[in-house]
């Protein structure tokens, strides 16, 4: 890319929304939905009937709200939302170790039979959903961060040129 093309690409950011970051947020939300639908449909004895599932549901609602809000923010090149998305993305990785990992290694009695709470298949599916969701959110944050810096530098250049 020539220097002129690079300048034009940066200048375009003044008028074109950051749809790549926003779309990555939507994909992150979508895979989180896949995750919790896959988890909450499990019905293995009374294993899941505890405070952690309640907290997980509340967290998911907050997640949806925060990421949707962030998607609007990054669309308009707001740098602060990059930090929020990065944090939420990291949390998606952390979540693997909370409910899914524990459920994968746990067994419970169903009709007197020792039964695995989460099968390998369900665990790996959930793993993929959370990892993809996390990757999308972190990528969104990174793209937005980079573009915000470029745009800020470009606007400063324009200001100095017009001064």
């Amino acid at each position, binding site marked *: 890319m020539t220097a002129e*093309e690079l300048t*034009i*690409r940066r*200048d*375009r950011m*003044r*008028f*074109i929304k950051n749809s790549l970051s926003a779309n990555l947020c939507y994909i992150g939300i979508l895979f989180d939905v896949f995750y919790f639908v896959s988890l909450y449909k499990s019905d293995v004895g009374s294993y899941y009937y505890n405070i952690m599932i309640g907290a997980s549901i509340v967290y998911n609602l907050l997640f949806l709200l925060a990421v949707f809000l962030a998607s609007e923010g990054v669309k308009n090149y707001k740098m602060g939302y990059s930090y929020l998305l990065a944090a939420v993305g990291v949390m998606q990785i952390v979540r693997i170790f909370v409910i899914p990992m524990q459920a994968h290694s746990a067994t419970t009695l169903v009709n007197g039979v020792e039964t695995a709470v989460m099968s390998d298949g369900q665990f790996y599916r959930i793993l993929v959903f959370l990892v993809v969701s996390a990757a999308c959110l972190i990528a969104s944050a990174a793209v937005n961060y980079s573009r915000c810096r470029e745009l800020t530098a470009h606007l400063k250049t324009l200001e100095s040129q017009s001064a």
Partner: protein
Amino acid sequence: MATLSIQHIDKIYDNNVQAVFDFNLDVKDGELIVLVGPSGCGKSTTLRMVAGLEDISAGKLLLDGRDITATPAKDRDMAMVFQSYALYGHMTIYENMAFSLTLRKENPNVIHKKVLAAAEILGLTSQLNKKPSQLSGGQRQRVAMGRSIVRNPKVFLFDEPLSNLDAKLRGSTRREILLLHKRLQATMLYVTHDQTEALTLADRIVCMSMGHVQQVGTPLELYDSPANIFVASFIGLPPMNFFDVRVSAGELIGEGYKIALSAEEQDLLKDYVNKEITLGVRPEDIAVGTDVPVKVTNCENLGMNTLVHGNVDLGQTRGVKLTAKLKGWCEYKTGDAVSFSFKRKHFFDKETTNAIRKGV
């Protein structure tokens, strides 16, 4: 830019209603042609046929000598600006202007350059991040024009673009269109029912009525030498006054008045002696004089001019209506008697309604 040749074009709808009859026009490169006429005269239909939005029933349409009669609208390389702006409300001004190029999958950097250049021309640079709802009517119309400019089409088509604007905005936007034409040197076809727009914008005017072309000419030609009574009455504000008169030896005889003819006028009307003709006089060609007695019915002071409305005094309660545009501030009351003279006269054949001209 481009030349456009419209040859013997007819428009006949499926219900056999003919909207346009034998329309012929050669538009030169960089010329601004205004199609003017009353509602339903076929001007918009003609424009839509040129744009490819209506089928051409008969005739040929040539763009730069290439026959595009059957070419689809998208391949004609023409851009149309509509009365209703046709902007996308959910897109920003930048996105609206870039939209057609984005659809064509042009390089985003090229699109950016073109949009910024068009915005600069139209003074929209500071509005590019706004939505259409945040702009005034005039600004929205400029965006619609900008959307055409970025395409760099061969011909610009305007379908009554100022009709949705208030009078003040219409004036300023009209001047902007004129400046735009001078700057782009583009071939433009402009449809309007407003004769002021036609007279101020056009290189040439096509005056239409009932689907027929009445006259093609420069604004001055249409104002100064109207081809027939329709053109004479349509162009000019207030409209021309018409009187039925009989041509006599050296004078015109109307009901209640006589007007002396100059030698030149006598020569022009030599074939009409003892015949009835229609005399046309523009309000601005009337002055206080001695020829035609008038009873004033109404007087409108406009500051620089005064419009005096009255009836030619026939010794009855009513006569032939007349409007005079007198210079300065005049005070006339209803019922006042005043006599007028005509500085310049237009003569029309009563049967054909065509102008009587030397050698015609």
